[in-house]
């Protein structure tokens, strides 16, 4: 067990439309720029105005993997936020709130009046609160103003003036300051999981992106649409997810590196075409950013209920399913997924979820780790056969427009030229050809760390998990009393059964941790290795695990 760290949390809350999330993001940017480790989470209901929204910023001078509920500062943009979050304050924690007078832990600050004085819209009042936070945390106001200039450009002036107001108010009243540790001066970038994933795709040569909006996948579409000119990416929003995937496959057939994303419902609409991609051997990346619950579910909350679903596409062909656990992995697996799709001419699924997609963290995205890997080029020419039999199952790839090559793809079973067939010999041979790719896929995946072990690697107590539970689990390791190791599976299909078996066989106690009801990872492990986990810790109330209570639960099991 590690020593307890210097961990600080600030929560900004208000009604939807109050700008709580953007204010918290600016604080996170500031803390990142001065060198802290930062994690920001957001919670909001599926509506545009009203309803309780909040964002929590946790930071430390040491590595943190998850945010913490215990608050040092609560910025309440309405009374409801005080009522809901007051109990989360630490002993010395305080509330910044626009009220008549100071009251014990509640420090009044006339946010609305300041905005009004300035002739600024009420949403800008958060800038005064951020100024006040700069006083409490003894952060250079100039650093905050730099952020305002970057984010708001020529509209930064009012924000800057308001931040000074807040700062001066607290300074004059000598509000107690919090002494922060000295941050390590590491240059990091604040990104959420969706942005990191999209950056990975771009680094691996993304050319076209098609998507239909669906929370929590939409911000990938927004981010790429914003970057479309800079990176010369064509970004389109067609009529529905069925159009999305079919256009994307047309685009891949025409030779462009293409991706799309949705959440469970939209992903379900794409299944028929994804199976076609397997059959026609078209390269495509499809991300499923899972939300909580079944069907429309809880639109703005997190869950891991789609693992069993996405690894069981209709029909049979070699499937690839990757699941990053944090922003840095989302970046690397974003790049890897597009490369695998093109190397092996097959669809690749990336599992994200709301927590990973929308949480922000101060990251070091290592762009040297992603290189563009292309497909086996064709000699083209008159004798071109799209589905030519080869030892490794991969046929040379030509595109319409290539000289003399006639490129015929077909969703029916087909012969080497791509003509429809019902010959039993060819049907068998083509099925085997597609599955022959597995060998190469496994070899390629072996170059990357697809099963990671953390904590006391020799311990016989093992936690197993996939995806975004990583944050809470790695953070919980700091508070688990008995020696324990945590095993993360990043590639779920094809699963490295031999390595996983080896690791799990050394364990006396295996505890499975998932954000779903049925323990889909545990089922996968049993299916592939025959090993049964001893205990499952499952959360399916739409919220992610919280490190301290998770550590408590694990401590009770290991007692």
């Amino acid at each position: 067990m590690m020593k307890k760290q210097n961990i600080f949390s600030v929560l900004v809350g208000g009604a939807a439309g109050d700008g709580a999330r953007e204010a918290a993001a600016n604080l996170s940017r500031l803390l990142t720029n001065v060198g802290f480790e930062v994690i920001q989470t957001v919670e909001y209901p599926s509506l545009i105005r009203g309803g309780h929204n909040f964002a929590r910023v946790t930071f430390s001078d040491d590595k943190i993997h998850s945010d913490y509920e215990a608050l040092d500062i609560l910025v309440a943009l309405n009374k409801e936020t005080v009522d809901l979050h007051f109990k989360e304050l630490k002993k010395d924690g305080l509330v910044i709130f626009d009220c008549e007078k100071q009251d014990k832990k509640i420090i009044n600050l006339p946010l609305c009046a300041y905005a009004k004085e300035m002739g600024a819209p009420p949403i800008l009042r958060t800038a005064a609160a951020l100024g006040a936070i700069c006083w409490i945390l003894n952060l250079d106001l100039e650093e905050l103003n730099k952020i305002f200039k970057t984010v708001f450009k020529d509209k930064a002036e009012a924000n800057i003036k308001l931040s000074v107001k807040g700062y001066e108010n607290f300074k004059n009243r000598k509000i107690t300051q919090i002494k922060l540790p000295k941050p390590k001066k590491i240059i990091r970038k604040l990104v959420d999981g969706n942005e990191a994933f999209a950056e990975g795709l771009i680094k691996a040569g993304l050319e076209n992106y098609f998507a239909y909006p669906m929370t929590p996948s939409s911000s990938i579409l927004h981010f790429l649409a914003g970057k479309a000119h800079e990176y010369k990416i064509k970004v389109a929003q067609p009529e529905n997810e069925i159009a999305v995937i079919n256009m994307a496959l047309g685009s891949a057939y025409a030779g462009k590196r293409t991706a799309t994303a949705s959440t469970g419902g939209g992903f379900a609409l794409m299944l028929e075409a994804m199976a076609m991609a397997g059959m026609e051997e078209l390269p495509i990346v499809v991300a499923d950013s899972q939300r909580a619950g079944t069907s429309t579910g809880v639109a703005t909350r997190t869950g891991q209920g789609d693992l069993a679903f996405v690894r069981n596409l209709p029909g049979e062909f070699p499937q690839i399913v990757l699941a990053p656990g944090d922003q840095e992995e989302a970046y690397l697996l974003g790049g890897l997924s597009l490369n695998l799709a093109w190397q092996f001419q097959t669809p690749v699924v990336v599992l994200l979820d709301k927590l990973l997609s929308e949480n922000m963290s101060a990251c070091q995205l290592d762009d040297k780790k992603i290189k563009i890997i292309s497909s086996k080029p064709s000699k083209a020419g008159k004798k071109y056969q799209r589905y030519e039999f080869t030892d490794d199952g991969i046929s040379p790839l030509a595109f319409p427009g290539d000289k003399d090559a006639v490129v015929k793809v077909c969703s029916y079973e087909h012969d080497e030229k791509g003509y429809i067939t019902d010959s039993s010999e060819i049907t068998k041979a083509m099925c085997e050809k597609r599955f022959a790719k597995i060998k190469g896929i496994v070899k390629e995946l072996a170059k990357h760390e697809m099963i990671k072990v953390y904590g006391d690697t020799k311990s016989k107590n093992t936690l197993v998990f996939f995806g975004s539970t990583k944050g809470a689990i790695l953070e919980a390791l700091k508070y688990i009393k008995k020696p324990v190791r945590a095993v993360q599976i990043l590639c779920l299909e094809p699963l490295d059964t031999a390595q996983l078996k080896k690791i799990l066989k050394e364990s006396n106690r295996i505890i499975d941790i998932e954000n779903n009801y049925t323990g889909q990872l545990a089922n996968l492990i049993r299916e592939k290795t025959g090993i049964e986990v001893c205990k499952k810790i499952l959360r399916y109330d739409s919220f992610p695990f919280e490190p301290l209570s998770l550590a408590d639960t694990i401590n009770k099991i290991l007692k």
Partner: protein
Amino acid sequence: MIDLNTQAKNTWCPGCTNFLILSAFKNVLNELFSTGLNKDNVVMTAGIGCHGKIADYVNINSFISLHGREVATATGIKLANPKLTVVAFAGDGDAYAEGIEHLVHAAKRNSNITLLVHNNQVFGLTTGQVTPTSVKGYKGRSTPFGSVEEPLNPLSVLLSSGATFVARTYAGNLQEMQVIMKKAIQHKGFSVVDILQPCISFKDTREYFKERVCELEKNYPTDKLDMALVEVRSNGDKIPCGIFYQVQKPIFEDSF
């Protein structure tokens, strides 16, 4: 003349009117090749149904897609490489039932692709069920007592959706079909040709169409949307064929 035949075995019924559409398409391609179109830059997509097999019978780039998705596939191909000439083949069940949303939106965005619909008012490959263009009262295997729904007028829908080239032709008139097919492919923007065809196995309308199919008047103006909307609906004793509407509008792919 480029030989566009393939080694694929043709599995259409003997005497199927799809042979006429196939023949017209190959003739049109050769006409276009002779005036500079590069064969390497042509792609055809197809849905699923009897019509879809046409991709196997033409020796050019092709993408047999899913039932109803040939237009979405074609849009993706065109956006990825606007140099390609992309022609989508569809059936009436395929395009007007399963995938009609893609037609409406392709027309709305004016994607520069061509859609040729083999409209025989029946599902052939699945042995004779009702489709959106079947006449009311049609008795098929899924409607043994007669269908209760009014047929859809697809060209009216596509005109309203913003299609910039809307035409109807009859598979039995090879020469006219070729002229319209060629103009549709040459059109810059979303072009659609509803090709009426008898299905000799499940809905033999040869006599029915022979009596009714007629050409639009010689001086018919093709730039009047209101007139086109009236004209495409005027199917009764006479079924007018020809180009109902053709205008130029900004093209989707040019905006990228």
